């Protein structure tokens, strides 16, 4: 695992990709931070939450090549024919991507220090937002890994990852849309309006139960819950397992 981790992590810095992604992140976070400074009110947790909306761009860039490149260049043979397990491979690559995201996030830690230096407040809510950031990143990177294992084209894998994250970011919107549209359809079908609304919102509840953003929103207010983190982590594990299975499939697939 360390072997894979080391290679993948360093490879971000052997190519311009790693630097460019970090530069992008630094710039965006810097703009948010400076903007708050100018308003004489710095809420780091808000900055972190705004930065989360860039997962949809950053995560695909980071994960797109993880598995698809190996498949395309034929280097995946190394993983299958050396005395390591596929678990090591998946875990190593996942951790490498996570570490890159951590490196990016150092920017925000610096912002926290600067905020302190300016006499601002860095409280539990800010650390809560940071924790959530990493757990959400873990979930999305796991999804990115899976997308990358599905195909041997970096572009397609990046697109798939983008779509996955888009769907997750839209879950709440989708849920409320579904809620109103389903209930109005049911009302048109002469179902009692309260029952129709109950059905619609029940459906919406099920969908928004899956929304990691909603689950973790209390962290920003300083309420730390284990359950939301467990949700992100277990979903990440699930997607990593799917990735693992996709790689294993290559062995026994008869196509």
């Amino acid at each position, binding site marked *: 695992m360390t072997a894979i981790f080391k290679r993948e992590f360093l490879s971000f810095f*052997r*190519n*311009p990709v*790693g*630097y*460019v992604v*970090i*530069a992008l992140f*630094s*710039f965006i*976070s*810097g*703009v948010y*931070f*400076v903007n708050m*400074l*100018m308003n*004489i*009110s*710095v809420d780091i947790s808000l900055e972190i*939450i705004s930065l989360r909306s860039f997962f949809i761009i950053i995560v695909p860039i980071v994960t797109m090549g993880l598995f698809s490149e190996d498949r395309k260049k034929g280097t995946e043979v190394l993983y299958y024919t050396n005395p390591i397990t596929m678990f090591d491979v998946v875990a190593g690559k996942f951790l490498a991507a996570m570490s890159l995201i951590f490196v990016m996030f150092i*920017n925000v830690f610096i912002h926290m220090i*600067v905020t302190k*230096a*300016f*006499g*601002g*407040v860095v*409280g*539990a*809510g800010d650390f*809560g937002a940071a924790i959530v950031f990493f757990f959400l990143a873990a979930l999305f990177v796991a999804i990115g890994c899976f997308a990358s294992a599905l195909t041997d084209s970096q572009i397609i894998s990046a697109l798939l990852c983008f779509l996955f994250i888009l769907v997750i970011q839209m879950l*709440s919107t989708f849920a409320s849309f579904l809620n109103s549209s389903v*209930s109005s359809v049911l009302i048109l079908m002469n179902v009692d309006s*309260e029952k129709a*609304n109950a059905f619609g*919102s029940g459906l919406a509840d099920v969908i928004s139960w899956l*929304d990691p*953003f*909603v689950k973790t*929103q*209390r962290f*920003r*207010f*300083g*309420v*730390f*819950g*284990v*359950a939301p983190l*467990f*949700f992100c982590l*277990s979903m990440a*594990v*699930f997607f990593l*397992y799917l990735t693992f*299975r996709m790689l294993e*499939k290559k062995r*026994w*697939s008869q196509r």
Partner: protein
Amino acid sequence: MKSIKENNNNTKNKRAMDLKLLSISSVIILLVIVIAANILFDKLLGGPLTFDFSATHKNSISKKTEEFIDTIPDGTSIRIVGLFDLPASLEHDPLEYIAPLLEAYDNYAGDKIKVEYINPSKYPSIIKELDPSGSYDLKSGYYVVKNGEKIAIVDPYDCFSYDSSYDYAVPTAVLAEYTFSNTINNLLSEKVKHAYFVSGLQEDPGYEMKSILTALGCESKSINVSGDFTIPDDCDILFLNGINADIPESVMLKLDEYIAKGGKVIVSVNYYSNTSEKYENLNKSLAKVNLYIEDCLIEENDPSYVLSADYYESYVDITDEFKGFTDKDQLHSGFPRSIRVCDAPLDYVSTYPVLTTSDKAKAVNVEGGFLQYMNEGKYNIGMYATYDDGNANPEVFVFGTNNLTADSYISGYGYSDQNVLFIRGCVRRMLSIAPEESLDIPSYPVDSHAIDKDRATSTSITVTALIFIAIIPLALIICATVVYNRRKHL
């Protein structure tokens, strides 16, 4: 023959099939486990494994509230219903200070307190469910706290104190926990409220008023002025509802005593049914709270206020202090007397106009069918009085019209009429729990993210901006080009 061949083929493919099966089934099993574990985690451990690390503990209930919840008897079930959809994101929403806190109530209290959010525009039946008698003006946007039959309303905006030295109200402190804990405490208090209607004064029967009081959790009884008149100790509110005769001297003394102890009194009279009564004894009592019922009829001369042709059915304005009781700014009055501050007022009493006429009203005195016009101006149709010092806290509403309390009006206009809503507001205000019974829960300041203005000079900000927006990203880009070029030629 064919089947043997197929069978053979199948056994040869067994390993691949097995692996496929293992692969798919393990994925499905893992998914099921993940979802089941999350549901379990959510339901069982979601509460206990949630910790409030915020500096102000704004998301958790204080020790005081916990102790209070512990005293709530088992089997009590209090519903806190937010009459709106809880927004998915609480950012920049005052609910940020309320919703997580209420969740903490729910988590701590177990079955005793249940918090839910139901939007009445989607589920209109919730209003009926919470308030079957329609006694409250339930609207979306409010929280409703319900215990058994009793309910109380909390407006989220009441959960803050405001600095009004600006043009707009700036929330400064959060009172959410104070508000909710006390609301629950009030609802729970075993003490049944008692309203007493003074009878024997040719008064309005007050059937409608009594049913309104029942809905507010208040039992109504009558006490007759004849004989041995005493105001019981458990009297929370005393009604002199549409009386047409003055009170006897014995009653006057008891009334003085009652007011001095901090009694709550609602008096309503008008000019229509008894034009000659001067209420001398009653006015002597009311003088203890600086009020005086005039012996005159108010004639409204502003056409925009007048309701019917005879000038005596008109709109009256609700004064600013009492506007919160209804949506509207005006009520109906009919054949009103004017209420004024008495001569030689006491200095420890504060009086407030409640209902006022336009500037063009005139007071008319009927003596033997003779109309005598008095000075034109603004007259008070209702007034409120209380003591300035906090000890005894009498509250007296005196209305010069019966349109707020009389059966004839209420049965004609219904419980949703503005006048009814208004009188409900008055009763609710008077029936609120006395201060010594409330839970003492401190407020805390609204989160501030302000930075030190002295340190955030334009120079320091410019330097920071330069570093974070220009230098760091540029340095990284330069790194990228250097690394790329160096490695390319290796």
